[in-house]
């Protein structure tokens, strides 16, 4: 399964759960991200096709259930920047507050390394996140050590879902629901390698 297909199926899962989310939670999230949320699989597909933040089709895509106990819902956005290198935007909403993180490839200036940082500017500077507490937005810029789209995506999902009982099981569900279990190893092996997983389920 190519990474674009995996992101789509991950997005479809998130959109499905979002449609059943509590109305109060949905309202808070809409306020935080300015209402630009992919509400169905078609909008999610379009959002994953955009190439820059200012594209009118750009929307935040709901993520499936998170493991963060204090976060109500997460959203991601994956615009392509600098050629074919993808960056990932992550927004976490907790009540009426939220925060944004961006996973970026090496850029210009002092951020000439792959990193993630806090940011409130998503989907273009005209639509900053609402409700984000004052957090530093250029630094700290934590190195990620990779610009590879697959690895960045796996970092993203592991960060919000955890590994065992989280991202691993979620990937298992996605590949099962797609009748593609044959291809699961491509991602689980990468995940184990880049995350440095040393112990496996059943071996603990």
């Amino acid at each position, binding site marked *: 399964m190519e990474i674009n297909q995996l992101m789509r199926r991950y997005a479809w899962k998130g959109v499905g759960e979002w449609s059943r989310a509590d109305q109060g939670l949905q309202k808070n999230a809409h306020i935080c991200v300015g209402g630009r949320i992919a509400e169905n*699989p078609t909008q999610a597909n379009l959002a994953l096709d955009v190439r820059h933040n200012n594209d009118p089709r750009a929307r935040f895509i709901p993520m499936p259930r998170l493991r963060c106990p204090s976060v109500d819902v997460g959203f991601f956005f994956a615009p392509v920047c600098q050629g074919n290198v993808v960056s990932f935007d992550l927004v976490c909403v907790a009540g009426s507050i939220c925060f944004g993180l961006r996973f970026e490839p090496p850029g210009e200036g002092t951020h000439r390394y792959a990193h993630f940082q806090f940011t409130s500017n998503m989907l273009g500077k005209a639509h900053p996140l609402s409700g984000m507490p004052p957090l530093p937005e250029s630094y700290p810029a934590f190195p990620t050590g990779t610009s590879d789209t697959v690895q960045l995506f796996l970092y993203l999902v592991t960060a919000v879902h955890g590994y065992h009982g989280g991202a691993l*099981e979620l990937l298992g569900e996605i590949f*099962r629901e797609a*009748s593609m*279990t*044959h291809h*699961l190893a491509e991602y689980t092996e990468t995940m184990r390698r880049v995350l440095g997983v040393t112990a496996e*389920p*059943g071996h603990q």
Partner: protein
Amino acid sequence: MERGETVKILVCDDEADRVGELLEQLDDGGMADQAVPLAGSDLTDTLTTFFHSVKKCLDDPANFDGPRAVVFDDYDIGLFDNRLSHLKLGGPPLTAEAVVGYVRAFTRMPYTVSLNKNPDVDFDLRYLVGDYETRADLALNTEHLSRACLWTAARGEGADFRPWYWPRLPRAAERRRKQIELVLRHWRDPLLAVLQLPTDEQSLSFLSLHPRSALSPNVDSHGIEDRKGIDELRFCDVFLAKSRSIPTERDRRKISDALENPAEVSAFLSNLAARVVAADLDLWMRRDIIGPQEMLVDVPHLLLRMPFLLGDAAGDIAAWNAAVFSETAPFGMDPLLYEEHIADAVYHGSEWVESPAFKWPDLKNNQKLNDLFFLQTTRRWADVVFCEDTSTFETRSVGSGGAVVREFEAEFEGPWKRRFVSRIADIQYKPTGRLAGVSSSH
């Protein structure tokens, strides 16, 4: 051609020459010598007498002493062409849909088929059940009758049109009789337990909203007072709620009231109600339990979720296909894995399912099974999909005959709605919109 099981089929049409076409198709299916036609004025006379009995019963069900014998009683399967407009019954043009519900309720014919209600639909992409709105037990088209898979265990070769959701009709009729007996014995009992479906809260959480609410509008899953949970729903509750056999609520209420006094109720009325409810539950099982594969999972869909159950043969597509129609344990799976992890989850309500099934909540919550899934090297598993239109496993990119398999999204609420078809030429898959926007590649 493998001969079908012995079964008595009544073929009903308004025009005698069209009956000939139906019989030709049955002949191709190897069943013509078990079919008897009822057409034209003979059908008119039969229906006239029949509806007279129906009206008499519905006018005063408590004091109805039973109908006159009618030819429908003597047959196992009734094939009713939906176009009955040439029958000289008076009133608006008749259709099979106007007849079959009453045939089900008021006769001993266990299984009815409506023909040609949707002549431009061969395969249902919405709910994988066929026409879910038909009042018959199954809706087919004339040309489907020649398909041996409706009548026998014949498999054919390669990409033969053989929808997984089609029952084998002789067995379906026999299972219906057993369903009716079961409903009759347990009329006032909670139906989930009698159907041997799990009733614990965690297992019930696997059911989406539609399965929970489809049997009765009075079922609630949110603890509202005066409303029943689905685990409390009884067979008698379903009779009042569903209009598929007896359309008007007033008529159902009269029958239901007559059934309230067990000491005085006639055997005819009890059997009528059991027949009606058995048919509604059969459809519910097909549309809401087996279709979505949430609470019960059948062999092919279980293998897709847990390919390692095939053991060393998980890389061999022939082993996958051998398992599809296996009817005895271990159903093509590795015997040791089956005994240790799967045997306890077998669904034993064989009257209600066409093929072997397993309780998915039990398997999903089996941590050892889930650990096995992640411990295996998945590349050793064949890269296959299950084609719902041919009942075969095919390699992902290319099906039998060279056609590209197509993914579609059925209209289930749960997670297992993405399925595959081979897209056989000259077969009409509807609604076509469900094939749109879903890539079959990677």
